[in-house]
């Protein structure tokens, strides 16, 4: 039997190629993302072991606030520690370092890199030091308050040469420096696309941070002590009142690598999730191809049965074929994936994210995973068709045609309906109080039910969708329509991958539309001004607080106010506080105060949201203990309660709170109300001038600002669409394969049509419309499911503040148009094949 199976495979290379194609695609995404993630990880590991190669000890504060999303804010340490550490026996050299926000302004006045969206922009210390992170490649390190050194990439991007003037924006404002040197980081021009402006220690403290403070101290030993002994010695030399810790070079390297690893693992998980979705979609294609090819070989199998092969043997032959296809496809998929990950790296490079060079990393786990998963998926997908093939009655050998028998059982309809009903019931149960975690199960039921019902609904829906084709294209349209409906099982299996892809895209779009609408509503309600200055810098840098003050002094402006964010510790947990300027906020930005007045908000008081007050039974006059990032503890009295917490969150404080601390704060937005009678034109001119002075932030009208905020979700959307694109590719390949097999199966029919006068272009039209109808079938049902799924997700997020569901009309239309285009594109090759059908072979019966 094994030999028969093998012959079956080799005898039909085309079929082998088509079946393997689905396996190859599915597994190549799997291996591609695994290899890419591993390579990225190794790359950063290498980078940081390089960077700290000559650092023997590392001194930093123990005071740290960990907030949501892995954000971390570590307190700075006094600069006098630098000299203290230098005196420790065994220390050869030290360097104080600062990592702070600094933005390099290009010669055209535009900041380098895209604001906020791209990698971070840093300012730091660059100086001669044995363990220096930076090495000068041109010129020298900065000395004095007017000099700066740039990383190589930034110098190149900004076309800066030595002695050029460079404008840099930092927390304290913007300033012009002379470029005295160009530096590289480890062996890359700049790490991960970030930009760097480097100063001498004094300038860095005063310009980037606060005078007298640095972030950490790098130590290089003189070789008399081991790293551990050195760290211990330094640790002992620093009084415990400074609250510092001393790490060895190995420890800080490991810690940094782990941090990057965690950050990257989010990315890896995202990539692999979507590659598994793609593989799941691919399994439908594999299943479909095996079904069709088993059906087309019905006569062959019946013959085997007639001459004495048992059911089991016929089934086994097909299973052996699937093992061969699975191994073959996954192996090619593995290599294709490695190529794919190379393409991804090239793509990143093209997007000017310069990764340190270093070969691809192909972990053995990726190899094993790809082959095993590919094999399992292939064999599992072939299981049902193989069993069906075994059940072919020997008599079928005598029958003329080998067209798939289509019996739509009542059982299938009932089972499908039952699944959908179960799903609906589960979802309804959740909306009437059951736990959210049941939603996933409900969705799964509805999806499985729909897929089960596929063959039942495929025929009527395809006939309906084909109506316009018939109107437009006459008899070729009629044939396309009938062809897409003639084998509902096959059509529904072909449309299923499209359905799944479209449903996911639609659900994401619905979620995004709902979030956009929500954000739009919130800002419309709370932002009472005419203009806003926005920055994309989330959590790192932002607008200097003096920008709002400057704008307030303009004669055209009635009032301008800045709003920022502060990370603190409350009850030992990291929390975000919204900072406002109580003197200017009223009438420009409304947080919906229900008790208290803005005048009540001082450095000793705090406002809390109504929800917080209710949940924590807090009332006016209660106190809260807030630990600032510099470890100062403040006791704040609740002086007001507000209603609108979508933007302000749980806590709002005055920006005066941090006046006497080392904590730095930025505004994330400045909101402006014009004096009445000031024209938009003149307002824009003066406001833009104020913004330009800082080289930071974007001036937007109220409408533009709100659109930008509500559109911010689209960035995330773009990423998800990109990843779902993998599934779309597989769906398209699925359509192509099915069409090819159908064309092969209908050779005689096509030959007959050609004989009685169908032109080649009419043959193509027929195939094309069949493809379009199939694709639209998947898209239409997918959209219906996707909107439902989106609604369910929005409902599940109601506690996260999403209150209303929006149907994503625009995306839905685009999806339909895309489904149409996909149908047309997928048909190109099969349609061409159809015109190549040998006319005579088709009409002369063998």
């Amino acid at each position, binding site marked *: 039997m094994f030999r028969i199976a093998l012959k079956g495979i080799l005898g039909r290379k085309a079929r082998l190629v088509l079946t393997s194609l689905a396996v190859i695609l599915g597994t190549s995404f799997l291996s591609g993302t695994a290899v890419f993630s591993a390579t990225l990880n190794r790359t950063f590991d290498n980078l940081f072991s390089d960077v700290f190669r000559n650092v023997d000890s590392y001194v930093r504060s123990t005071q740290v606030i960990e907030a949501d999303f892995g954000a971390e804010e570590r307190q700075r340490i006094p600069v006098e520690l630098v000299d203290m550490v230098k005196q420790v026996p065994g220390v050869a050299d030290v360097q104080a370092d600062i990592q702070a926000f600094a933005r390099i302004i290009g010669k055209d006045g535009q900041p380098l890199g895209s604001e906020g969206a791209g990698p971070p922009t840093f300012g730091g210390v660059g100086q001669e030091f044995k363990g220096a992170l930076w090495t000068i490649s041109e010129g020298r390190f900065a000395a004095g308050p007017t000099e700066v050194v740039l990383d190589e990439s930034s110098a190149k991007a900004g076309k800066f040469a030595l002695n050029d003037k460079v404008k840099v924006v930092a927390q304290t404002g913007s300033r012009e420096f002379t470029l005295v040197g160009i530096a590289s980081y480890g062996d890359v021009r700049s790490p991960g696309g970030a930009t760097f402006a480097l100063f001498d220690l004094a300038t860095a403290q005063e310009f980037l941070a606060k005078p007298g403070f640095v972030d950490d101290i790098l130590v290089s030993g003189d070789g008399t002590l081991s790293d551990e002994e050195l760290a211990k010695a330094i640790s002992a030399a620093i009084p415990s009142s400074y609250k510092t810790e001393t790490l060895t070079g190995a420890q800080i390297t490991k810690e940094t690598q782990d941090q990057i690893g965690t950050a990257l693992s989010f990315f890896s998980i995202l990539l692999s999730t979507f590659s598994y979705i793609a593989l799941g979609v691919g399994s439908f294609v594999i299943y479909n191809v095996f079904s069709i090819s088993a059906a087309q070989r019905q006569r062959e199998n019946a013959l085997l049965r007639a001459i004495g092969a048992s059911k089991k043997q016929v089934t086994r032959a097909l299973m052996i074929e699937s093992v061969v296809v699975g191994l073959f496809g996954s192996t090619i998929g593995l290599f294709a994936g490695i190529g794919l990950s190379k393409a991804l790296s090239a793509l990143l490079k093209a997007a000017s994210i310069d990764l340190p060079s270093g070969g691809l990393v192909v972990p053995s786990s990726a190899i094993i995973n790809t082959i095993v998963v590919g094999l399992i998926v292939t064999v599992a997908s072939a299981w049902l068709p193989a069993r069906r093939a075994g059940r072919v009655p020997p008599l079928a050998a005598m029958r003329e045609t080998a067209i798939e028998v289509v019996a739509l059982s009542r059982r299938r309809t009932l089972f499908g309906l039952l699944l959908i009903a179960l799903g609906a019931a589960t979802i309804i149960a959740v909306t009437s109080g059951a736990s959210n975690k049941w939603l996933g199960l409900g969705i799964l039921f509805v999806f499985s039910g729909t897929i089960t019902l596929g063959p039942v609904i495929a025929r009527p829906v395809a006939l309906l969708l084909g109506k316009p084709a018939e109107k437009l294209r*006459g*008899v*070729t349209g*009629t*044939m396309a329509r*009938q*062809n897409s409906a*003639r084998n509902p099982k096959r059509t529904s299996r072909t449309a299923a991958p499209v359905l799944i892809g479209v449903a996911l895209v639609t659900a994401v779009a619905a979620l995004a539309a709902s979030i956009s609408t929500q954000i739009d509503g919130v800002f419309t309600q709370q932002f009472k001004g005419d203009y806003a200055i926005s920055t994309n810098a989330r959590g790192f840098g932002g607008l200097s607080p003096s920008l709002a003050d400057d704008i307030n002094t303009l004669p055209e402006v009635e009032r301008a106010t800045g709003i920022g964010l502060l990370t603190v510790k409350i009850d030992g947990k990291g929390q975000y506080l919204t900072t406002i300027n109580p003197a200017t906020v009223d009438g420009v930005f409304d947080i919906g105060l229900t008790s208290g007045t803005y005048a009540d908000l001082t450095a000793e008081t705090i406002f809390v949201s109504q929800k917080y007050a209710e949940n924590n039974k807090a009332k006016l006059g209660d106190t809260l203990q807030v630990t600032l990032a510099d470890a100062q503890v403040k006791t704040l009295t609740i002086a007001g309660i507000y209603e609108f917490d979508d933007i302000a969150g749980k806590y709002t404080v005055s920006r005066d709170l941090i006046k006497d601390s080392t904590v730095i704060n930025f505004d994330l937005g400045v909101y402006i109300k014009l004096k009445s009678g000031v024209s938009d034109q003149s307002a824009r001119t003066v406001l833009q001038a104020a913004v330009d002075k800082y080289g930071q932030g974007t001036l937007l009208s109220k409408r533009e600002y709100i659109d930008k905020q509500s559109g911010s979700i689209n960035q995330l959307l773009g990423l998800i669409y990109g990843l779902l694109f993998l599934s779309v590719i597989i769906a398209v390949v699925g359509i192509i394969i099915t069409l090819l097999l159908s064309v092969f199966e209908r050779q*005689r*029919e096509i030959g*007959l*049509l*050609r*004989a*009685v*006068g*169908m*032109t*080649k272009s*009419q043959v193509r039209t027929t195939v094309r419309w069949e493809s379009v109808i199939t694709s639209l079938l998947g898209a239409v049902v997918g959209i219906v499911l996707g909107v439902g799924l989106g609604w369910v997700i929005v409902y599940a997020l109601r506690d996260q503040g999403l209150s209303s569901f929006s149907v994503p009309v625009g995306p839905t239309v685009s999806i339909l148009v895309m489904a149409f285009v996909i149908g047309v594109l997928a048909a190109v090759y099969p349609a061409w094949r159809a015109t190549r059908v040998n*006319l*005579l072979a088709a*009409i*002369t*019966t063998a």
Partner: protein
Amino acid sequence: MNNPSAATATNVSKIYGHGDSEVRALDNVSVQFETGKFTAIMGPSGSGKSTLMHCMAGLDEMTQGSVTIADIDIASLKDKDLTKLRRDKIGFVFQSFNLVPTLTADENIRLPLLLGNNKGNEEWIQKVINTVHLQDRLTHRPSELSGGQQQRVAVARALASEPAIIFADEPTGNLDSTTGNEILSFMRKAVDELGQTIVMVTHDPVSASYADRIVFLKDGKIAGELLNPTPELVLDYMKNLGH
């Protein structure tokens, strides 16, 4: 009445394969089929009957010679024009698998017209449908029709566009004799009453006797002719040919 030629083959040769494996399926064949006549082509299996029909109907390329259909030299036509010629000027009836399974009987009958975006002559089409007795089967699909009914639909399709000539390759080969005779009578009627031109390939003397004239083929060459045949005459003639 003077009968011009609906189709003419002049010195047609058809060679399959090369060198040693070369097969001369048609060897310098010249033949004319008169308008308004029912002609049968007979000959032993492998004598080139189907090949002649395919070459004359523009379904296959000949190696040498020329063919005209309704005064059009088909050798000069590109694929697209040749297809249109088959659609508009030629009717076909094959031995089996004549109909498109997804279309109704009515759509199958009108298929060449529909493909040409041509309404056709409705009066004529109704007449054809009546002649082959298909009035009450029009909405059925091929799978719902018997073999004989399917061949009647095929004959009706061949007639529907009022072609210059109809080629039928063993149209009754898959039918029992009663049903076969029924089809042959329809074809006879189409020639006598509707003025059509039919060329039919067959190896059955009884079928051939429905024709006005029989052309005999042997080893790819014309071996003789017989006018106004009866089954007995045909058998006699075939014996004389050494068959």
